[in-house]
């Protein structure tokens, strides 16, 4: 089946209606999704520069999980020199920010999370994530939300561990 432009608008409309925004963002709008993900798997950053091999492969030649790789890569850049205002800190430590970002681009979400964990105390974010996880209902579309929460939570925790490790 080939969709012309008008048909694809309809498809987008239907998908939006049924809360398939992440799918839209990552699949429909970018037909380069597979290529993008495969490049990521091999350590290519969004700008097609490459992360160091030690950020991809552990000592025993086992590959890191991609999220771990991203975190190690961001952490390896060291603490940024920029001094951000309390307003930016408030935005980047809000769970809502990552939930909305996740709908737009998963990779960017990971980068922002890693960067935030590197710079700020993430206790508030962790607490907020845990509360959301606790409140989420495990059925229907909420299951999808839980995935977001879990990934966020896992990521934040993991990032903290990596931070401690460094």
């Amino acid at each position, binding site marked *: 089946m080939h969709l012309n432009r008008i048909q694809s608008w309809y498809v987008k409309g239907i998908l939006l209606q049924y809360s398939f925004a992440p799918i839209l963002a990552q699949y429909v709008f970018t037909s380069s999704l597979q290529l993008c993900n495969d490049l990521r798997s091999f350590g290519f950053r969004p700008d097609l520069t490459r992360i160091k091999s030690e950020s991809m492969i552990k000592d025993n030649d086992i590959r890191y999980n991609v999220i771990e790789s991203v975190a190690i890569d961001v952490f390896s850049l060291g603490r940024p020199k920029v001094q951000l205002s309390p307003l930016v800190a408030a935005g980047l430590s809000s769970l809502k920010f990552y939930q909305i970002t996740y709908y*737009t681009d998963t990779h960017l979400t990971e980068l922002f999370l890693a960067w935030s964990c590197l710079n700020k105390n993430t206790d508030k974010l962790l607490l907020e994530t845990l509360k959301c996880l606790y409140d989420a209902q495990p059925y229907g579309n909420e299951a999808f939300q839980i995935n977001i929460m879990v990934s966020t939570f896992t990521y934040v925790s993991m990032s903290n561990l990596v931070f401690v490790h460094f």
Partner: protein
Amino acid sequence: MNIDCQIRGKSDIHEALSTMCEAEYMEGDNKVFCDNCKKNCDTVLRTAISALPDMLILSLKRFDLDYNTFETVKLNSRCAFEESLNMKKYTLEGVEAMEKNSSMNAHDDVDETYVDPLRSLPDDDYEYKLAGVLVHHGVAQGGHYYSFIRDRTTNNGSSNEWFRFDDDEVTPFDPSQIEMECFGGKVKKETKWPNGQVNTVETDQLANALMLFYEKVKPTKFDSNDSEKDIDMVESTHIPLATGVEVFENDVKRSNNVHRSHVFLFDTEFQRFLRQMLDASLSVHNVSECVTWSIPILELSTVYFFDILLHSVDKNTLSDWIDLLSSALSSPLHGSSFTHEIARRTRTINENWLRIFASDCPEDTSRSVAMKIIATAIRSCLGREEEVSALKSWTQAMSKQIYSLDSDISPVSLQKHEDIDKMVSFESSSLGIIISFICLLLDLAPRTWQYNIDLCALIREISNISIEGNGDVLRDALISVEVPARLIALFMRDKSPIQIMSAFPDLSLSFERIECIAKVISFGTHLYPLNNNMTSGVGDNSSSIGSPCPSDHLNTLEALAVVIGINFAKREMLIVETGEVKGRFVYDLTSKAKESLKVIFDECSSRPGLMNESDVLNYLQVCCVYSEIAASSQRVNNMLLKYGNDNNDLTIDGFLKYYRDASQSNTVMVCERYLIAV
């Protein structure tokens, strides 16, 4: 004279005109009060033309209301007309003659020989000749108008040469085609299949006549006495007479001038001349020569580029201009001159390039190109020490101002302390003025979300500029005026943390509220748009839906990432549109994507230039981290079967083709998969 002809159920204009002249009997409750009899009497109501005009216009009522759906529909039914028209039957004299005849026939029992009751009226006085036809092609909600007009300027008006007037195109027209082009009705379309089968489909002819212009063969002669009286009256009352020409003369002259200048400005020779002139100015390195003629040429070229070329429909020459302007602006002196111009224009309304192309322009290509040029100029401008120090002073002043405010609870307001007259002496910073204006545009961004995607792209580009020895002066400047916080507010809107919402109330408005405000501003209640098209169709497909979708925020997030220091978050293009086949876009990998894939291919190949079955399996296993499809041997076989060579090995060409095909089919494949799930 204009006569509205009801054509529903009528096959030609005579039927429509006859209906107009039909007698209506007013009896019973419909009796009409008679002034003579002083009571309600039975009456015959009829319509007839008392005096025929020299130019008769018949409006065919093709737009009608469908009482089932209460929508306006267009009647595409056939309505025939001829090149000559006799109006005798529809005049007062004609109607009276026919009535007289019919009443006489009613008294005579036997009518042996039929005598035309209208024969006593001379045909010449009622004869018209078709002079023009206005055609509408389309449906009730939209379409296109054009005309067929007979040339009445030659042969004393009796010429039968016709022309088609379609916008600015005037072409000869064969009047024998009038039936096909103007009558409407059904049209049969035949499709012949390769097996010889002929498929016939009957559809409505969407192009049909809407107005007919008939000219009287024998124009009416006025009574000389009446004319004299008229002249006397005109002279005595001093009423100015107009032929109509004078009314439109100025407009026509103005249109002709505009047309002439457009033809000149878009002429390829003229463009080539300007480009050559700009090219010649690039060789100038001497500062005094730059000031005397190189910079004025750059100014002229940028005005031509931003004010004319970017507004043009034809974008074919843009790439040449972009390369040339980028080269010209790469010199710090030229870049600085251009940023001064941009900064100066932020104080104007109609000449403000930054506002026009960062938030108002509906053309996505023009927007992105303009932002690219502005970013190039800003980059090279920082090559001047004076500009850097002016920007640093501006940043310090701004930081001081911002921190003096309690930004957690009150809106961050920027006081305009930039003086454009002091830019030349570097007492004020042109870049600072531009950044201030960018903040202003960001604050208005929720209202112009459809057109300001490239504003974030500009922020992303300029925050990535670092100058050797001076660090990230632009990033510091952007941070000093809370651009990152503004981007977060623009992205999160009403979901922003309370501190951000307090600081940027305009930026934190929800889309629904912005939509309400925009409606109040744009339309009265009688001017509500008929459909959502008014807010759609801006550049790419993603903006076709009436509210921002996730992909619309990508530039905002990338800009935020780069401003806060994640420089590599700016995504490189992986695929590029190379054309369209049968309504479907064709994609190819960009050269950078190909280079990256080649690196992966080399890493995964156990032999130089070849990936065997085991290599492909290992490769797919790494990729499976993100893919929901497992790396099975079946998948490896399929890949090698389709993209491998004769020895069942994968070459770099096959590898790249695999990704090219994946990019091509991804949209459709994924849509199908998830639609089924829905």
